[in-house]
């Protein structure tokens, strides 16, 4: 086992055993069980679940990411004094935290799903939802780690990270809408598709809604979106964009941290 997997193992182990990882998983378990049990309509439950996941997964990943990054500073110093490659330490910590968050989310949704096993089609929907949740986890913990390395002051860093979340979750959509209103006279479908690629929350939302609310998204120019997001290549582009949202902040983070003084 190389040092990277060791670091992943221990930071995963460390976070996974904390009460909040448990709480996080339990929360999704309770929410999804409640929704699936009481709504009676699988798709409707999934839409509600989607809203919750799109809101909370980025927020919680951001908060945990920032807290973890700042709180483990001293321990990181201890690790840095050990014979370890720098990148492995930080990549390991990132992956450890991300994986434990993903596991909590996955278990919460997974157990609920086993209890209310649906059709094959429904499993695909839920799988897609879980995948998007996992990707969002990776994206927003990555952004949080990046913020922690860019801002020494943890209060400032925390604020900035929350702002990033707020921007992606709400403000971006407001600006997008303003943009659409202002340039209403121009054909904007393609531009809009492009713009959604720049917001991982929007992108995840559309990817899942295309499965759950096909009817509505097919309306109007929706067909254009469906032609893009609904095809295999559009799907690949979207997932690729989400992966870039993980990779780019992470690469910047690792480069910054490589030359950072502790």
């Amino acid at each position, binding site marked *: 086992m190389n040092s990277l997997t060791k670091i992943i193992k221990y930071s995963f182990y460390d976070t996974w055993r*904390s009460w909040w990882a448990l709480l996080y998983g339990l929360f999704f378990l309770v929410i999804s069980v409640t929704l699936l049990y009481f709504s009676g309509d699988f798709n409707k439950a999934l839409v509600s679940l989607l809203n919750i996941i799109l809101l909370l997964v980025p927020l919680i990943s951001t908060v945990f990411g920032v807290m973890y990054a700042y709180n483990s500073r001293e*321990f990181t110093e201890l690790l840095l004094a*050990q014979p370890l490659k720098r990148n492995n330490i930080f990549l390991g910590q990132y992956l450890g935290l991300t994986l434990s968050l993903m596991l909590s989310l996955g278990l919460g949704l997974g157990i609920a799903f086993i209890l209310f096993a649906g059709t094959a089609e429904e499993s695909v929907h839920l799988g897609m939802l879980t995948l998007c949740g996992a990707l969002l986890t990776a994206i927003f913990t990555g952004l949080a780690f990046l913020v922690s390395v860019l801002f020494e002051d943890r209060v400032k860093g925390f604020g900035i990270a929350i702002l990033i979340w707020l921007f992606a979750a709400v403000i971006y959509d407001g600006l997008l809408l303003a943009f659409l209103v202002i340039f209403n006279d121009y054909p904007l479908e393609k531009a809009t598709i492009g713009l959604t690629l720049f917001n991982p929350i929007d992108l995840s939302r559309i990817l899942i809604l295309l499965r759950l609310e096909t009817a509505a998204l097919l309306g109007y120019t929706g067909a254009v979106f469906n032609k893009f997001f609904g095809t295999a290549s559009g799907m690949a582009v979207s997932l690729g964009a989400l992966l870039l949202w993980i990779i780019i902040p992470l690469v910047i983070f690792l480069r910054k941290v490589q030359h950072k003084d502790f």
Partner: protein
Amino acid sequence: MIEIRNIAKAFGKLQVLNGIDISLEKGKIYAFLGPNGSGKTTLIKSILGLTQPDKGEIFIQDENIKDNWRYKSRIGYMPQIARFPENLNMMELFRMTMDIRKTPANEEKYISYFNLEDARDKKLKNLSGGTKQKVNAVLAFMFNPDILIFDEPSVGLDPVSHLKLKDLIREERDKGKTILLTTHILSEVEELADEVIFLLEGKIYFKGTVQNLVQTQNERNLERAIAQLLLQSEKKTKKLNLKAA
């Protein structure tokens, strides 16, 4: 053992280290002194590779440490503040470091030496500050490294443990280890240090034995000698500030 050549480091406009040249031998305890911001910690962190100097080179056992991490397996480090992954217990922490370093360790010896038996299965976040410091000390010693670095080791330690730590440090020196130490406690310096390195404004202001220092400053004891040094440094700083103004 440790060769430091013309190290310089600035944080923004602040020149923290400004051309440091020293060579540290084995079998000696070096105490790094100096006012806050004089560059002690930065120097130590440079040796550990936590901070990367802008200029100069550091050799450990003739090996340049730049872009190198393997040399750290020969160093034991006890930082000033002890913070660990909250949800691991002490033994897991030790096992993890052993896992990372892959060198033989005799942690049991130090666990009993510092009376840490009761802490074995406790989560690290539930340990007191002093106990955490002892855990830190065990981490530094357990791999029997050639170089030991202590950053304010006495902080938070109870008197008995402090005494035990000092004994251990001497013992290790006698085994031929190179030991680096920063501290504010002058009795510690007097008791332990073979050589004192006084840093000021990122430069070595004095380097020599305790006796040497006392003599050069024409004082009766180390405390007064240090005070004298500090006084001089303050004057110098003021002058510098005036010049700058």
